[in-house]
């Protein structure tokens, strides 16, 4: 009489055991990848906006300043989405009948808001404040990426908690002089592209930027280029704020050739809170 199982079943049985193990592991890995995948985070996805607004064209092409549209970024938690009016400032004159701009004109005519899709959408229980970040030397590009190179806006970073913590636990690596906040092309200092910073007088009670001034050209050369945050830079000339001239030429500048060094210097100057406080729950959740 025949056996219940034939020869192959041994191999089968053992293989299936191994397979199960592999499957379990594979599943874990997949889930782990999935929770970080663009499918969940919308990273890099270009939402279907009513108007295909190009930051590239407006920022890089026309050299518009970030604050021209995002007016409250320095004052409020909320950077601000420009009202239709802002668009119409120019588009009342130029491209007055471009089909692409129809929704804008419609909104202007009817008084109904343009319905944009949120690209950077934090969960509602996260309380993010733009003003403190830009005031403490975190540039737009640090979180939003090279917006000036984005024909259509998309989310550069995951905006997940681990990503936030990544910087809150070590703010130094992303700090830059407040004068360079809106500089999309800003690069961390290196040997061949150093940064010079000087402290006028580290007094408290004045806005962060005022006591520190940094330049990207050797200040010993003629006409050091500086800017400070509280003076709205004019489009195109981000490094040539009038205030720069009144700076005493006799400032002792320190040269920085690495982000590490610059970061430590700025943490000290800008009184950045220690990581223990920055990574504390109540910083973002209430």
């Amino acid at each position, binding site marked *: 009489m025949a056996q219940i199982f034939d020869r192959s079943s041994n191999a089968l049985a053992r293989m299936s055991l191994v397979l199960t193990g592999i499957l379990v592991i594979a599943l874990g890995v997949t889930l782990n990848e999935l929770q970080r995948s663009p499918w969940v985070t919308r990273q890099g996805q270009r939402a279907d906006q009513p108007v295909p607004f190009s930051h590239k064209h407006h920022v890089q092409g026309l050299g518009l300043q970030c604050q021209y549209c995002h007016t409250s970024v320095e004052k409020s938690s909320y950077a601000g989405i420009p009202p239709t009016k802002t668009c119409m400032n120019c588009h009342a004159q130029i491209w007055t009948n471009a089909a692409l701009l129809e929704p804008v004109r419609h909104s202007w005519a009817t008084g109904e808001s343009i319905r944009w899709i949120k690209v950077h*959408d934090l969960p509602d*229980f996260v309380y993010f404040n733009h003003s403190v970040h830009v005031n403490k030397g975190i540039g737009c590009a640090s979180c939003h990426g090279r917006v000036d190179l984005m024909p259509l806006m998309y989310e550069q970073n995951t905006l997940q908690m681990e990503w936030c913590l990544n910087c809150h636990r070590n703010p130094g690596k992303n700090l830059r002089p407040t004068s360079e906040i809106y500089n999309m092309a800003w690069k961390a200092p290196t040997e061949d592209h150093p940064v010079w910073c000087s402290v006028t007088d580290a007094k408290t009670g004045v806005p962060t930027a005022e006591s520190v001034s940094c330049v990207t050209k050797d200040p010993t050369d003629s006409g050091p280029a500086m800017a400070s945050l509280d003076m709205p830079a004019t489009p195109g000339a981000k490094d040539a704020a009038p205030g720069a001239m009144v700076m005493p030429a006799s400032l002792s500048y320190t040269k920085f050739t690495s982000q590490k060094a610059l970061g430590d210097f700025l943490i000290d100057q800008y009184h950045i809170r220690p990581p223990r406080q920055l990574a504390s729950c109540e910083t973002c959740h209430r």
Partner: protein
Amino acid sequence: MTPKTEAGTGAMETGKEQGLTLAEVRRNLQGVKGKKYWRSIDELAGTPEFEAAVLREFPDAAQEWVDPVSRRGFLKLMGASMAMAGLAGCTKQPDEPIYPYVKAPEDLILGKPMYFATAYPFASGSVPLLVKSDAFRPIKVDGNPDHPYNRGTSDPYTQGTLLDLYDPDRAQETTYRGDNREWTEFMMTWREKLIAAKANGGADIAILSTTVASPTLARQWKEAQALYPKAKFVQYDPVNRDTVRTVLGTKDVQYSLTGADVILSLDADFLSGSSFPGFHRLTREYSERRKLASGPEGATMNRLYTVESSTTTTGLKAEHRLALRPSEIPAFTAALAAALGVSAPVPSYGWTDAQTQYLKAVAADLKANAGKCVVIAGEQQDPSVLSLALRINEALGNYGKTVSFTDAINPMPTVQLAELKGLVNDLWSGKVDWLLMLNTNPVYDAPADLNFVDAMRRAKTTVHLGKHADETGSITDWQIPASHYLESWSDARSYDGVASVVQPLIDPLYKSHSAHEIVQAMLDESTKTPYDAVRETWQPLLAKSTDGKTADFEMNWRKALHAGWIDGSALPTAATATVAAINAPAPNSKDAIEVQFRPDPTIYDGRFANVGWLQELPKPVSSLSWDNAALMNEALMVRSGLAEQDIVEITVNGRAVKAPVLVLPGLPDNTITAYLGYGREAAGRVGSGTGYNAALIRTSETMAVAAGASLKKTDGIWGFAVTKSHYQDHRSKFFGGEGTGNNSLEADEALTRGIIREATLGEYKANPGFANEGETHPKVEREITLFPNWDYSTGNAWGMSIDLNSCTGCNACIVSCYAENNIAVVGKQEVRIGRNMQWLRIDAYFEGDLSAPKAHFQPMACQHCENAPCEQVCPVGATVHTPEGLNTMVYNRCVGTRYCSNNCPYKVRRFNFLLFSDYETESLKLMRNPDVTVRSRGVMEKCSYCVQRIQEAKITADKENRPIRDGEIVTACEQACPASAITFGNLNDKGSRVRKLHDNERSYAVLADQNTRPRTLYLAAVTNPNPALEPVVEEHAPTAG
């Protein structure tokens, strides 16, 4: 707000409403018709019959049946849960739209709130306000810090008006006999009527209004009266100041407690009743004299005597309290007056020894402090009390020192009851053709004997202007939605006689209008807006500068709006006034049961009945929420063969009402206290069907107190929602406690456990450190620890100090917390089983014999322990400690094991057992504080020290590179407190107020022996008793009979 809403979509929502335009608000609100929610009286959750049935048949099912939450749609809950799941961070969120402005308002920075000064017009004097507005939506109402009267403090009513504004049940359309009409249609008919009435001088037009607080309205009426000399304008409020009018005519009396070493309150509840004129200032001045800031040496305090017929916090805060039946108080006053050399007839009456002893002591003390004392009379008493009290003050030479007089702050001072009677007679005699009722609800609250409803029907056309289509509005021909004071222009005077402009913060949410417009319609410029009308009123004053020369009106007007009051508008004050000499009537016989009617401490006369915050707010002393009751002392209850929660029929001079019975410690015998404002039938989804309507037995003869009531037990049980452990556990003696066996176990425990610590002034001077000495007064010992103490010495260390000596238990802090922290209202049935969500509660302990108790009030919220027991047991780390010493609760991390709550010795954590937060009602979304997460089902929550305010201040300070200043962060409770009993600040800042208070030797930690190391410390109370008065020990243990 109540969780009972129609089913809808349950999307997660945090109150972040940035960029929402008013247009959209209106769109959202459309289709939400007030009437839709109305229910017939039978199905009201609260009616005794229904309650009784539920409780008798399936007690456990009671909450299932009655609980509003459980009535919600099935799917919606799923929706909400899933939405929460979505926020777990492992699933993707739905697309969120952004609606930017088309044209952004000039001054608006989204995300930055703006503050506007205005005032809340209230019959007993307006409350100057500074209102927080986010994207042009008022989201928090607080006192105006610069105003000399209330210095930024407020009270439960005022705080509640915010929810009143967003009440989804408000009337939204002008209706004529139930059909929607346009306001213009009404105006046309109204104008037509006026033109027709011109001939007879408006003889057949009568206006019945709530007490007029607005000088502008008064001016408008004055002008209208000139055009229509025969037209009538009648004011009536169920709680009014007729006593003052009777005694002082058109004058008002003002008390100043700053210079008062001895205060005698004759049934004047000036410490808890926000309804008492000058509450904010009196409470502040009273508590200022009890701070003992200078330390034990030469410490001085005021001394408060209270003679009262109900049990109020004023009585329980008093060093010496005497409970008398309402009708005994006039006689007592007379006797006292006599003792102090006021010539007035004294009705003979058999006082007990204790009462005589009390009288003697008070008289002596007052004499000794002549000119440094004050006698305050209650306004719900017989006029003779006020009359005599004033004469006593005069005799003691208090005039011009602690007592002064001004013109009435209400521009049209009248004896309202008389006027109302007159109006009703006119109605019966058919004289009135058009009856307009402005912001009043006579059908519900007029004296029962006037039978106002039938009288009203005699008028051909009846018009009701009201925020709700209430009992009156639902039967008048015209019902016109009235604007909330935050929606329309007006003006009003505060207690100190200074006028404020009431400026709106938001366009009317619905098609509402104000009384100004209706009266203005009688004038030639019939369509002049309230704004112009108010400006016109103050034109003369503001057009000239202080030195009398002409000045720029616009500039002064803007200054007035900005400051919140009008300079130079104060009323002239006088040291004396002519006081009508009214003699005290003889008291009723001791066995006559007296029913006294009082404004409700939480919903006043019923106008706040639909404000969920105030309904759920536990009343001072009784901790009763969602209902009123026939409050009586235990002796009377037992004698009448009743038990608590029984429903008793109270019959007094021919009228009867069914009321549930609740014992209130300290009430005089044979006395029942009945709060007005309940038993509403058309208040809205929240207010309808709560409690019973005391007005049914309140006649024009017995506005204050009705004597000779008889009690009859009827069947049925009324489930009360008493928010704290009921104090009637008499077994303290059995456990080995103090007293006669009639003591409250809770209170004895509270004292044994050192939760409440108190000393007399003498003891304090003798031993300043009493609060931390002795077996029952353990103190924190930092060196006792198994592990190294965490280091908080650098940076900020947040802490709070609560002064038990100042706290009067007025509840303002709780309502303020509601508004600031988006706290949910859970409904009566949930409160009944102990699930109320208040982060802050005021614990009341009744010491000694429950018939003549001494009470201690203790605000209790999260103590932010440094060794927090709750944190250690949370398996997911949802509650952790911050470097600055906050015990933070991370809602979105919480999975809801409730272990933290079990392990919290202070039981200050609150859990969302069901979906308590309202995610559907559009209007409520507008009210929420965008900086605080709205908690969903299954999440633990608790006091956060207003972390959102801390963060805001930190960011501002960081941007300016400076440390946070002391007092820069003010918690919501601290902000509202009229007694400034709460202080918040940085303990590492040597100079901060809170640090000084923590260093004060009176500071103690509750449950210090648990070594939890709370960051909130309490200042032990110190009382200043009169040595001549040994505590009156009477045996009141109930005896059945």
